[in-house]
């Protein structure tokens, strides 16, 4: 039951993009096409889940164990960058065509602040190992959800007659604001 609550809380109520405003760059940049949004969301979910596990182990057995908590941010940045590189190398070895088609999304994740936010949040929330992984997975699902909703709306906007001054970035930011307001309605659910 606790894991389900963590999942709902991270994916919907405390959605990284629409409530915490983390990962706005890919949210705006990769939400033009639904296909790309799903790919980016899945890649981010994968990296977030593994980051949650690695960050938890690193924090408990190295940083806390050696009283090096002040190195949290630096070590998490290093872990995320190395992890993304490892995943990229893994996909490149496993399937070159897949890497050529979808590998583009992986390096973009290195610069996604939502991943670093996740690592710092899970330390702050003092979850156990399993809870941390569920938290990481749910955060990725929430990120994908926000991206897919946004992409769906932007694809519809391509067909709509948007007034000239609102075309492009302005209408995208207005939609993002409306979505954030809608997600605020979930606050207090748990």
């Amino acid at each position, binding site marked *: 039951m606790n894991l389900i609550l963590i999942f709902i809380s991270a994916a919907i109520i405390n959605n990284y993009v629409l409530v915490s405003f983390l990962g706005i760059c890919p949210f705006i940049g990769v939400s033009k096409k639904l296909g790309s949004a799903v790919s980016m969301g899945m890649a981010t979910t*994968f990296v977030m889940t593994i980051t949650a596990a690695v960050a938890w182990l690193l924090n408990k057995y190295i940083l806390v164990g050696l009283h090096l908590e002040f190195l949290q941010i630096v070590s998490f940045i290093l872990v995320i960058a190395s992890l993304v590189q490892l995943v990229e190398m893994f996909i490149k*070895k*496993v399937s070159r065509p897949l890497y*050529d088609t979808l*590998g583009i999304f992986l390096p973009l994740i290195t610069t996604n602040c939502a991943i670093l936010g996740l690592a710092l949040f899970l330390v702050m929330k003092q979850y156990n190992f399993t809870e941390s992984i569920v938290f990481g997975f749910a955060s990725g699902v929430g990120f994908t959800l926000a991206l897919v909703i946004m992409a769906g709306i932007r694809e519809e906007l391509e067909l709509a007659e948007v007034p000239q001054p609102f075309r492009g970035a302005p209408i995208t930011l207005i939609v993002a604001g409306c979505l954030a307001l809608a997600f605020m309605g979930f606050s207090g659910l748990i």
Partner: protein
Amino acid sequence: MKNSDQYFKNDCETATVVDLQENWAVVELDEKGACHNCGAKMLCRPNGSGKRILRISNTINANIGDQVLIEQIGANQLKLTLIQYGLPLIGFLAGVLLTGRFIKDSILGVPVEIIQMFCGILVVILSGFGIYFWSKRKAKRGFYVFRLREILNSTRK
């Protein structure tokens, strides 16, 4: 309202054919305006050359130097995404959570969390083999995400 053809073209990418390899065309995608100020610009080029290069089946008989329109097949991309990222992710979650359910205490002084992590990574590696064989089989059957739709500017006279 915009017509559907204009909408469709917005969903395509333009590129230039830079090489021909048997039945394949190697194309270099045109850079988007949004790329100019992006901090990750040099990172998101999978081959490290700073250029976005794709190898696509040359179904429209394009020549080197031709500007072509590339169509993205959404359903195939979704399928590939689910296989590439979804399968290892499910494997990792299953490996970690199932190990946590069956192993409660440390073994030979190794903490449960590290055993869980090890099992999760092991399943990810195993799923990698699955993806390898799946993609080999699909490649033989001509499964692709991008296809050449039309030649915009031909070098042929």
